């Protein structure tokens, strides 16, 4: 394999954390909730009624795709379920299948910096080249359209982003999305929008889906996963929606990769759309409480971190203060604990140090792109007691090793 793909640093941190006694992990973005009862019950019924033993049609169950079209239409996103919606084995399969279908080897895909780590792997899997476009941290990690424009080359094939963004919790403004689409139109690029966190919006922020810009539908690939909204990360079910000219190309790859998404998960996803809206509202309310809790801890540590209160998702992405950077740079880490490419990174050093010394697992910011260096990502999707325990350990530790003078 010409292009070695490392395991996602998020999963790497989760694996490292399993070896630490009494660890508290805020690393992987998993909601603490169980899948709602109504979904589990419908999935069990589907199994008992003999509906899950065989493949579904490759693009997915008719009933599910129809429900997806119906659901999207409520948000003024219009796709034809018969030809333009494909149910996938998680959103990462949707993303990988999309790039395998659309990219030629060496094609470039512009991705925000920082953004979700596995995007790089998905693009590389399709023999593409991820090209980072730095976001503007001073504007709550907004897109810098001039930066985006400056990175477009003859090889650029697509612009790919997560909206709302992971790890920053940024919601890209309507005007920015429109500018990105216009840019894509000028340069004949695809726009891939992963909207997995669209149900968790806070601080009265406004979210506008890329899928609503129907004038640009011939270049948009809309992706949504059931994992986060319905606490179904283990079911591996998501979907993509795009103009039929695009889905015609993706369906063959999807068929070659997985034949169809797990059928039992498809029935569960149908139940989610039909019955679990109240659960999504409850999850959102709980996440708001947890966000406020974790932000309170960071508000009490301005000498160590600065951060933007996230408008969405369930992550905070605090930045190290100069004082903390000075201290990290003086620290030595066991040679065996870091790979060569991780040794010069403060965020890796800090993440490993707090994992080894206080048993708190977080994700080093550089995992999300170069602009993520000197940051860490913490997931507040976990239980409140976990958040309290992790943040107490971190606060006490930093106050001990870096006493305020």
């Amino acid at each position, binding site marked *: 394999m010409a292009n070695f793909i490392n395991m996602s640093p998020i999963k790497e941190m989760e694996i490292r954390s399993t070896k630490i006694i009494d660890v508290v992990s805020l690393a992987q973005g998993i909601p603490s909730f169980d899948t709602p009862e109504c979904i589990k*019950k419908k999935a069990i019924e589907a199994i008992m009624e*003999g509906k899950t033993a065989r493949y579904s049609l490759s693009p997915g169950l008719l009933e599910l795709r129809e429900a997806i*079209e119906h659901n999207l239409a409520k948000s003024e996103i*219009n796709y034809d379920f018969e030809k333009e919606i494909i149910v996938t084995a998680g959103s990462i399969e949707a993303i990988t299948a999309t790039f395998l279908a659309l990219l030629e080897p060496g094609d470039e895909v512009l991705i925000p910096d920082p953004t979700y780590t596995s995007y790089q792997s998905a693009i590389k899997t399709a023999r593409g080249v991820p090209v980072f476009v730095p976001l503007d941290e001073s504007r709550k990690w907004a897109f810098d359209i001039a930066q985006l424009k400056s990175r477009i080359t003859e090889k650029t094939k697509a612009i790919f982003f997560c909206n709302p963004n992971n790890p920053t919790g940024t919601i890209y403004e309507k005007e920015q999305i429109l500018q990105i689409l216009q840019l894509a139109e000028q340069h004949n690029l695809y726009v891939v929008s992963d909207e997995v966190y669209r149900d968790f919006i806070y601080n009265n922020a406004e979210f506008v889906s890329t899928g609503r810009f129907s004038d640009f539908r011939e270049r948009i690939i809309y992706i949504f996963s059931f994992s986060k909204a319905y606490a179904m990360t283990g079911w591996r079910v998501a979907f993509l929606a795009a103009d039929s000219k695009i889905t015609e190309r993706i369906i063959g790859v999807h068929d070659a990769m997985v034949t169809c998404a797990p059928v039992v998960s498809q029935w569960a996803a149908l139940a989610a759309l039909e*019955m679990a809206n109240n659960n999504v509202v409850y999850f959102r309310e709980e996440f708001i409480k947890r966000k406020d809790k974790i932000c309170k801890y960071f508000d009490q540590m301005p000498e160590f971190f600065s951060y933007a209160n996230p408008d969405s998702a369930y992550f905070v992405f605090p930045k190290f203060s100069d004082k903390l950077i000075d201290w990290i740079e003086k620290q030595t880490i066991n040679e065996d604990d870091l790979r060569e490419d991780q040794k010069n990174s403060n965020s890796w050093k800090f993440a490993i140090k707090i994992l080894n010394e206080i048993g708190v697992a977080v994700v080093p910011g550089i995992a999300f792109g170069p602009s993520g260096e000197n940051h860490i990502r913490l997931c507040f999707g976990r239980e409140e007691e976990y958040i309290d325990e992790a943040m107490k350990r971190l606060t006490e530790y930093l106050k001990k090793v870096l006493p305020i003078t």
Partner: protein
Amino acid sequence: MKKVLKFFVQYYLKWLAKIVLWRHRPMIVAISGTTNKTFIKDLILKEVGNNMEVRGNPRSFNTEIGLPLAVLFLPSGYSSLFKWVDVLFEGTTISLFSRKFPKVLVLEMGVDCKGDMNYLLTIVKPTIAIITNVDRNFPNNGTSINDITDEMKNLVKSVREDGVVLLNGDDNRVRSLKEDSTANVITWGIGKECDAKISDIKNTETGQLFTLESEDRKEDIEIRKFGYHNISAIVAAKIATREIIKRKNKSVKQK
């Protein structure tokens, strides 16, 4: 124990629904088929809702327990015994004492296995039946595509002579059900033999354009939706709305 409770809830609700329908005698529009039921139902509700009081069932309320719940306009108790006690109490009150009730009920009828339709037809007697398509994508629960066609046949047969059956002329299995009806049958689709003909379909950036010829009228229609099934849904809903209003006007005149 759970099975006994489910059996009790199912039959109790069925009788409550039958009583409320007997008391108020609304016009029933039944929509069945593998897909496109919800789109048609929503369009009918929107169109007819401007003229008279009408209600439909939530998408998933279309089976042996869901249908009576929808008729009675009640939520599900899901897995909670206490919630079910509340639901049954409220249902009893609505069934026996309600004064207001919609003039038209537009109900999706979900059919999964042999016998499902006959059971649903013991609860409701449709004046108008709409059948969208017969397709299978999980042919492994002992029910074949032919069995599902037979279930649709039962719906067609259940409509009395003064009712109307709307069949999707684009689906061979559905079109063949015409022979089984004693009621007036209207077919819709792109086929030349269809009573309501769809032609000249064009895709635009924002949706679709098409021409509809029905009852000596020809009109161009633009919709902001993609996919042929949305055209099919809008045509079925238009015919159904016309038939509902026709029958309601007729019953007003008779009074």
